[in-house]
């Protein structure tokens, strides 16, 4: 069964939707809830499938290139986020395809789930 790596923080409303959505997107995927981005290093798949909340979007989007993600310069360990980590992997030449299903911070879960299904 294919893994989907799910990011977010269930205690912060604007960052919780990916974790809430994960359980609604079917049983064909093994859901891996991530608390730290380096967990994706365990992925043995050629393409790493991820689900995360993206700021300032209203509809789900697909991101296939880490350079599309704004990443910080890492001024503290708290900046060790998914964007930083994917860009680091790219800079280090870790050749793995990525597919991030980006969802808006809020919206109707069942409608978002329907739209997301096409990319799974």
């Amino acid at each position, binding site marked *: 069964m294919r893994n989907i790596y799910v990011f977010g923080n269930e205690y912060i409303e604007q960052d919780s939707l990916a974790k809430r959505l994960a359980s609604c997107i079917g049983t064909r995927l093994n859901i891996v809830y991530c608390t730290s981005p*380096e967990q994706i290093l365990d992925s043995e798949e050629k393409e790493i499938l991820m689900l995360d909340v993206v700021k300032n979007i209203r509809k789900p989007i697909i991101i296939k290139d880490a350079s599309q993600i704004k990443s910080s310069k*890492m001024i*503290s360990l*708290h900046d*060790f986020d998914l964007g930083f980590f994917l860009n680091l992997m790219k800079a280090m030449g870790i050749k793995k395809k990525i597919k991030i299903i980006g969802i808006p911070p809020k919206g109707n879960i069942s409608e978002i789930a329907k739209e997301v299904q096409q990319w799974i």
Partner: protein
Amino acid sequence: MSKSITLNHITKIEGHAKLVLGIKHGKVTRCELSAVEGSRYFEGLVRGRRFNEAHEITSRICGICSCAHVIAAISAVEDALGYRPTEQTETLRILLTLGERIRSHATHLYFLALPDYLGYESALAMASKFKPQLHNALNLMKTGNFIIKAIGGRDLHPVSATVGGWLKLPKKDDILQIKKMLIAVKKDAVKTCSLFSKLKYPNFKSSTECFSLVDKNGYAVLSGEFTSEKSSFRKNQYKDFVKEYHQPRSTSNFVVKEDHAYMVGALSRINNNHGKLSKDAGKILRSLKLELPSKNPFHNILAQAIEMVHCIDEAIKICSELKISNEQVERLELKKGNGVGVIEVPRGTLWHEYTINDNGIITNANIITPTAQNLLNIQEDIRAFVPFVIKKGKKSITLDVEKLIRSYDPCFSCSAHFLEVNWA
């Protein structure tokens, strides 16, 4: 000629700090380091809560060292209730703490400290040229994370450790897997020592006193006396020696030992415990021909690298000897008391103290983080160090001072306290 340097946001450290530096006629006229984090109120938050909630609440002080706060809080509460944990409980707490130290040191060394020495703005900028080194870092971090998750139940804010024991014990397979990963990653820790031993550290000697726990039974983690080259005292005496005070400019307390600044952290631990390092960590230390005790704060990162080898060796030893028995959490008899928990964590010595009433309610709390203890020392080091680099341009002085601050691996988020108010 006068110079004034104000760093409103010092980068590549945890949290927010500010430095105001004034230089006139080749002399430092003003040097003020402040934590500018918002107040945290954690000591207030635990007041009125039950004794077995302190570790869950204070864990949230920091995501980077949440295990540290969990174990320090539990130790303090158990001390207040007069309970001594079983050997297995204590050993698992040490293993959790070692895992966190491996993760924290690896991240700090490679992602925050190393770019300065290699002339890069960030780890991302150096990634294409230093791939093997960053692979080492990721392997070490992953191992630390695995230990924390397997022992603590989660890789952040662990949930398995509690007052009186462990809510969930690791399985035999978890311990075997940890051991396997540690054996595999040890070479990366050794390479880290080699890399950091080749860096050029400024030749600076602080006049500080280096404190850490010292335990006759080994390289202190969860027990021992708070010791320097000059003095030593037991944990329950700490208020006789260690004083906290506020500065209006800073949300973090400043801490002194008998009115003097002191240093805690990896360098202090190595200075005070070098004879108790693991065989391989000791061998690496001796090969560096470092004069001990070293009072050069820039050596703190080198000490962190050596500690990683030691932590891996210690954790392997624990995994080899550990036979998990199905111990239940001890139900502790409630009684009023006061207890202190003091442990060694990635950035230095961490203190938790709780007063509990007959009903098990916390009536008072005090937490002193490593960064709060180091804050005045960092400021005094900056004041003493700047004259050595004073002829350089403003940009170079700033970078050198930032390197000095970062060498302490400070965490200003954790050090921020609330200000006490005397109501009229």
